[in-house]
């Protein structure tokens, strides 16, 4: 009977003594007669920038003949250091995905029928340009909205700004990192950025609040994380799930979902009342400490213990450890932060305040401050003045930093404050990226124009009037990619292989549309490489070096106080605002407040979701090279709970949420690694688009079950961990 390749093989202890003592039992003369094989995969290496996620690592793509064979990290790029995550390595599977969009498509059936006819580029672009002219005349240019993700969107932002709209709604704000960015802007005057400016590699204590580094595979961050773990840094992981990161931690705090703010407030309580904060730093750089100290008195560890299900003494002890490592003590700000709505900005503010008390902002092992590299712009005419975005009502979500994607959807549905009639969707599968799918589908049916620009036919493409096949990042130039890291600089995305079929790069599509709309003056170049060379020239960057090395670095400047950095804060007071006058003036609590999450109804589980190392949302799930990897399309459920429900590991169930929405059949992962009051899924599975022939029908779609949200009143984020599911066994 063949052994299973994936079965667990027990480990036994060995020692160097036995290892070294073992005599090699081979004959050297016999060995010499045998050949070894070189697979010949090195080829010609082209430096470019990855776009499988948003981290933007420099890569080297190896081409043999005319075929892309392998992708590796660019050793010269500070975000890669020659290393790469599985998605970046596996992007060969994206380049040669047999389901790629290769021809412009015009819809022939009803929206969502996925019925199209292939048309010429000229026909597709003329159709769009005519519709855009029509919309401009009927409703004004602001009636067109762009939903986007990824760096290639810059061409379409430019085009649509020139056209006259400011309605750009990236789900990466209100459905993701918005609450965090707003909280840090309010506190420090700037946000943690992307990639996050975290010096994890030098942290002596690292706290993760739900961040599952290692499953969340942001290359440099994981490199630094591994270094911190190897150095023996004190790692404290707060997560209802025993994540990979939790398994590396000195302390895992299996918190009751949604109560993180209570824990953070108790940590602040201990650090303030026991005077364990960085006194000189706090005195020099912060404002509002006295108000904080007064407000924090009530948040004792005993109070937090009752909320979080954690032990009060453990809360106290971990607070002391966190403070003891300051200022090289980092409470990770997380990334996806739209969890519970009302609580989200407050939670992120509590994280920001904690970091301020630790003095970690600006110190080695905390938040470093990259200088960035100044890039000149190629001059183009000024954009026409556009109406303010349609996403918010008067007084709503006053601290939003970007238009709210769900707000643009609402304006599409009710025409307030003015009508939205056309959508451009670039690089985001809105069907899975937005919560409350029914609203999205209704809005789509109300549109007069829906254009989707993408590389694969995800669900959203099935609703488009026109689908424009884009060259994947391995097949195109994009605008210069700035690097703001320990070393700052600029990187170049350039084509490695030609695009498949008739797919075209985004810059070409935007420019062609611009010319058809009479906006040719905004694209004063014929080919993008000319534009890039001009921009490099204006910026004092040698283009030939950039094209060869993939990256040009700026001279080193200090990024932490230890190296001579002077700390400044772009807040109104010029200080770190522990107490926020701005929030107070707008009628919000100026200090973080805890709001207890709704309880889990009997028989239900809170639906939690997250990431797996080989996947970026739904966009990698059709990649055959990645799809074969570890079974992360299962729903995690506590092993004992599963047993009580009569469900064995691997059993097939459907998840049914509080509104009766039922998922596709999905297997369960019965495991000790999760609390009994929640279930966990990796986001991005459960595709239904028939064009995704590999991904379709694999796993279940968590987003479909997010039919309810709680909106953060401060900044409009949609808290999505407020949904509950039951498990129905499939026959």
């Amino acid at each position: 009977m063949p052994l299973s390749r994936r079965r667990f093989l027990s480990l036994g202890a060995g020692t160097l003594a036995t290892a070294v003592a073992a005599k090699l039992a081979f004959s050297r003369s016999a060995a010499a007669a045998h050949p070894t094989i070189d697979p010949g995969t090195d080829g010609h290496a082209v430096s470019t920038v990855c776009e499988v996620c948003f981290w933007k690592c420099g890569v080297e793509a190896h081409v043999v003949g005319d075929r892309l064979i392998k992708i590796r990290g660019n050793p010269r790029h500070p975000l890669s250091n020659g290393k790469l995550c599985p998605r970046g390595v596996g992007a060969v599977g994206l380049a040669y995905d047999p389901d790629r969009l290769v021809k412009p498509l015009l819809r022939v059936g009803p929206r969502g029928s996925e019925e199209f006819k292939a048309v010429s580029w000229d026909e597709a672009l003329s159709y769009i340009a005519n519709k855009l002219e029509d919309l401009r005349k009927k409703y004004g240019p602001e009636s067109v909205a762009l939903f986007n993700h990824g760096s290639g969107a810059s061409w379409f932002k430019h085009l649509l700004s020139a056209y006259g709209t400011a309605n750009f709604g990236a789900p990466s704000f209100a459905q993701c990192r918005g609450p965090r960015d707003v909280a840090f802007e309010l506190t420090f005057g700037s946000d943690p950025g992307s990639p996050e400016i975290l010096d994890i590699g030098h942290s002596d204590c690292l706290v993760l609040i739900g961040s599952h580094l290692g499953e969340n595979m942001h290359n440099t961050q994981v490199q630094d994380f591994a270094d911190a773990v190897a150095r023996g840094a004190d790692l404290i992981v707060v997560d209802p799930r025993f994540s990979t990161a939790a398994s590396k931690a000195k302390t895992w705090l299996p918190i009751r979902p949604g109560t993180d703010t209570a824990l953070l407030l108790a940590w602040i309580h201990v650090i303030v009342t026991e005077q364990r904060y960085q006194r000189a730093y706090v005195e020099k750089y912060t404002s509002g400490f006295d108000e904080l100290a007064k407000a924090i008195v009530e948040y004792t560890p005993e109070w937090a213990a009752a909320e979080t299900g954690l032990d009060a003494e453990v809360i106290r002890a971990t607070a002391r450890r966190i403070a003891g490592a300051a200022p090289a003590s980092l409470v990770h700000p997380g990334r996806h932060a739209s969890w519970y709505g009302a609580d989200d900005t407050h939670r992120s503010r509590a994280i920001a305040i904690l970091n301020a008390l630790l003095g970690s902002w600006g110190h080695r092992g905390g938040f470093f401050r990259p200088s960035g590299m100044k890039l000149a712009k190629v001059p183009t005419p000024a954009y026409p003045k556009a109406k303010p975005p349609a996403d918010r009502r008067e007084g709503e979500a006053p601290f939003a930093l970007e238009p709210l994607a769900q707000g643009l959807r609402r304006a599409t549905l009710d025409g307030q404050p003015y009508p939205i009639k056309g959508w451009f969707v670039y690089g985001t599968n809105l069907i899975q990226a937005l919560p409350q799918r029914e609203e999205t589908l209704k809005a789509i049916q109300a549109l007069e124009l829906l254009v989707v620009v993408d590389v694969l036919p995800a669900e959203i493409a099935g609703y488009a009037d026109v689908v424009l096949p884009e060259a994947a990042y391995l097949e195109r130039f994009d605008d210069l990619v700035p690097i703001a890291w320990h070393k700052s600089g600029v990187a170049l995305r350039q084509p490695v292989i030609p695009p498949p079929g008739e797919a075209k790069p985004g810059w070409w599509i935007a420019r062609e549309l611009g010319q058809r709309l009479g906006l040719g003056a905004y694209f004063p170049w014929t080919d993008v490489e000319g534009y890039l060379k001009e921009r490099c020239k204006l910026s004092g960057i040698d283009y030939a070096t950039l094209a060869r090395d993939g990256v040009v670095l700026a001279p080193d400047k200090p990024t932490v106080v230890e190296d001579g950095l002077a700390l400044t804060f772009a807040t109104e007071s010029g200080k770190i605002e522990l107490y926020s006058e701005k929030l107070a003036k707008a009628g919000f609590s100026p200090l973080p407040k805890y709001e207890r999450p709704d309880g889990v109804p009997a028989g239900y589980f809170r639906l939690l979701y997250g990431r797996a190392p080989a996947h970026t949302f739904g966009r990698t799930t059709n990649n055959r090279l990645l799809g074969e990897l570890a079974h992360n399309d299962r729903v995690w459920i506590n092993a004992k709970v599963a047993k009580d429900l009569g469900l064995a590991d691997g059993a097939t169930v459907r998840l049914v949420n509080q509104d009766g929405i039922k998922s596709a059949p999905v297997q369960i992962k019965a495991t000790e690694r999760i609390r009994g009051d929640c279930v966990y899924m990796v986001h991005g599975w459960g595709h239904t688009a028939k064009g995704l022939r590999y991904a379709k029908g694999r796993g279940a779609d968590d987003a479909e079950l997010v039919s309810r949200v709680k909106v953060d009143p401060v900044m409009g984020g949609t808290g999505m961990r407020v949904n509950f599911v039951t498990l129905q066994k499939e026959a």
Partner: protein
Amino acid sequence: MRRVMVIDMKRCVGCEACVVACKTENRVPDGAYRDWVVQETKGELPTLELLIRSQRCNHCTNAPCVTNCPTGASFFHVDGTVQIDRDRCTGCRACMASCPYDARYVHPDGFVDKCTLCVHRLAKGKPTACEEVCPTSAILTGDLDDPTSLVHLRLKRGDVSVVDPEAGTKPNVFYVG
């Protein structure tokens, strides 16, 4: 010379970049793997342990695949690694039956294939594909006979294990941490 691999389980997060890198480096066919990641959970909530291990051919010193190969296709290379001579391999699978680690598969072209420890790269002074790409720097290859090598120094520090030592194969892929 004795080429060995040392894998740091403390660093490894099980991301499988090593798996994808190996597949693209070595033209491993669809559905087949030369390396893979094993995760095992021990204990009960909340006292848990997670073991994550990137596995591959152990390039055993007592390699049953070499002993059991009827054609001499499986052999020890001069660096001590176990290799397969494709021209001599008939695809009979005797090696596969004798390997306690299930490290081998039959290539569609008719020969048996497995991890070569990227012998073609090591010969050029480059790291293996999995070592090169690993974001956590968990994988290290080197000459155990060289007392100054990183692998030698790391193994000397102890806390070392191998997969299935009871099989008596004396693996040369070591796990630490």
